[in-house]
């Protein structure tokens, strides 16, 4: 049999079901790939022994009726996994072993899959290039020295390099969609509240959402179906009936109205991005969709708003990392306060500290109204922009990122230029909407580029359908040479 690991998740599931491959052989194939891909630094922790145990158990008593029968999966190291170290890419959690399993990963395991390893990510998911991880940079398989995007950079890299058949990430301002775009893969940020946040190391509670990262739209539907669902342990979880995204996937999008927001044509946007967007529009027209010009007037304020709201929430969410109950504690510190200050100073990296300081400042006495309250008002305006537009359209098409993958170190000295990477992805988080990044082409260097489809709240099925139809007609193929092995 040809190399099974470069197949899509859906194809692999078919091979498992028809017994063309056993779960054990599949798992061994991935372990082999992972072991030869250390250069990519995509994994923080591997759980090969446990994975092989699980695979053998599956093969002994297979249940093919599950969504993910016998499938090994690596997940972002932001999901707490029972008895497996969970670091969130941080030194402050360098020895933390949860006694519990996040709801989302539990859902995946309940559907027949099991853990292969924990994937590197930006520290506490704060970053757009995976350069803030305490466990080192992750390399984009697209090219040596290229960043894989962030914060789910280990996830995008591992997926594109065939180190896992599919994966999951978290997206607070673009952390699924931007790395998907940089690696020529599919990434979906679901509607806020569709996937439980319980057991996921929190970055910014009102923005964080877990979502799938896959090679194809069909895979994406399978993964979303497996991981999502109401969770009474999360007060912000939406209580609704579970949807069968993969079964209901349709490629007929005739008559759908697709909004094209003029504000996403930003200054200094590379010509290639514009061309990609045009290509996307043309494909949708060919598929029978109707394009409608729309305006989302407050788009330019989304990123400044995000850089108030997200750090504010993070400064509070990260207060629990104090060296008292788990994780790293500095050896210095004679009294409690000194212990806190040293622990947090040594335990957190520069970007995390920067954002904690921003967040602390914007909430502090005398500045709250000018920053935090102002941001929550603008957030309201941004949400209203979308609400208004969605009265007349089914979905919105935009580029996923303002550029293709950049070089390691290229933007680390200028935080604002790094933040600008998320300019197209952030508004969606602020409004709590679902958005899909799908590979649509390459730039002149041959680096992948993605387009973003934004849907109404809980309209995941519709954007998956559009993506499904698009994928069939786009002709994009991710050509990655395995230069690292």
């Amino acid at each position, binding site marked *: 049999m040809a190399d099974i690991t470069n197949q899509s998740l859906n194809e692999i599931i078919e091979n498992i079901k028809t017994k063309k491959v056993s779960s054990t052989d599949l798992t061994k194939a991935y372990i082999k790939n992972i072991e030869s891909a250390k250069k990519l630094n995509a994994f923080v922790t591997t759980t090969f022994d446990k994975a092989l145990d699980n695979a053998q158990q599956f093969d002994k008593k297979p249940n093919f009726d599950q969504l993910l029968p016998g499938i090994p999966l690596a997940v972002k190291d932001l999901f707490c996994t029972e008895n497996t170290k969970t670091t969130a890419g941080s030194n402050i959690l360098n020895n933390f072993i949860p006694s519990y399993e996040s709801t989302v990963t539990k859902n995946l395991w309940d559907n027949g899959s099991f853990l292969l390893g924990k994937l590197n990510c930006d520290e506490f998911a704060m970053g757009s290039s995976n350069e803030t991880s305490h466990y080192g940079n992750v390399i984009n398989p697209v090219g040596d020295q290229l960043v894989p995007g962030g914060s789910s950079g280990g996830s995008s890299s591992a997926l594109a390099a065939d180190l896992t058949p599919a994966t999951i990430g978290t997206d607070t301002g673009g952390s699924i969609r931007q790395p998907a775009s940089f690696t020529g893969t599919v990434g979906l940020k679901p509607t806020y509240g569709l996937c439980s946040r319980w057991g996921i190391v929190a970055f910014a509670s*009102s923005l964080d959402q877990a979502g799938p990262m896959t090679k194809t739209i069909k895979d994406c539907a399978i993964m979303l179906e497996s991981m999502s669902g109401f969770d009474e342990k999360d007060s912000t979880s939406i209580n609704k009936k579970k949807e069968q995204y993969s079964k209901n996937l349709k490629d007929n999008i005739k008559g759908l109205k697709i909004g094209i927001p003029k504000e996403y044509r930003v200054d200094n946007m590379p010509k290639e991005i514009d061309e990609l967007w045009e290509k996307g529009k043309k494909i949708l027209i060919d598929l029978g969709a109707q394009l409608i010009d729309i305006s989302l007037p407050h788009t330019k304020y989304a990123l400044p708003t995000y850089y108030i709201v997200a750090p504010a929430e993070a400064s509070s969410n990260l207060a629990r990392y104090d060296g008292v109950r788990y994780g790293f504690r500095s050896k210095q510190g004679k009294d409690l306060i000194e*212990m806190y200050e040293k622990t947090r100073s040594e335990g957190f990296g520069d970007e995390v500290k*920067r954002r904690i*300081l921003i967040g*602390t400042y914007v909430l502090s006495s005398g500045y709250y109204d000018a920053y935090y309250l*102002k941001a929550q008002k603008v957030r*309201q*305006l941004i949400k209203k922009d979308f609400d208004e537009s969605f009265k007349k359209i089914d979905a919105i098409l935009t580029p996923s990122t303002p550029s293709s993958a950049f070089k390691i170190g290229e933007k680390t000295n200028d935080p604002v230029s790094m933040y600008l990477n998320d300019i197209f992805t952030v508004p969606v988080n602020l409004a709590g909407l679902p958005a899909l990044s799908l590979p649509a082409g390459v730039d002149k260097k041959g680096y992948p580029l993605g387009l973003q489809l934004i849907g109404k709240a809980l309209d995941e099925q519709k954007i998956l359908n559009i993506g499904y139809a698009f994928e069939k007609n786009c002709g994009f193929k991710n050509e990655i040479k395995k230069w690292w092995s």
Partner: protein
Amino acid sequence: MSLDKEKIKHVAKLARISVDEAKVESLTKDLNSIFKFIEQLNELNTDKVKPLTSILNQSLRSRKDKISDGKIREKILKNSPKENEEFFVVPKVVE
């Protein structure tokens, strides 16, 4: 508005993060460029806008009052940096 070193040190104190004197300079520069970017929001008049309280249009869901958790001291304490079978232990608090 600009953030000076003193203010940054104060904020760091509030956040319980000790900052190297040597790093204050570059931190000040970075934070000021970020705040310059953030302050684009001042262009917008938002006097009549109600701030967003939640992105979800639903009320808070509640649970029944029953004891369903606890009695897991071993789990709670097993990750603690200073081992003890009953308590979390931290350096003395100076009141």
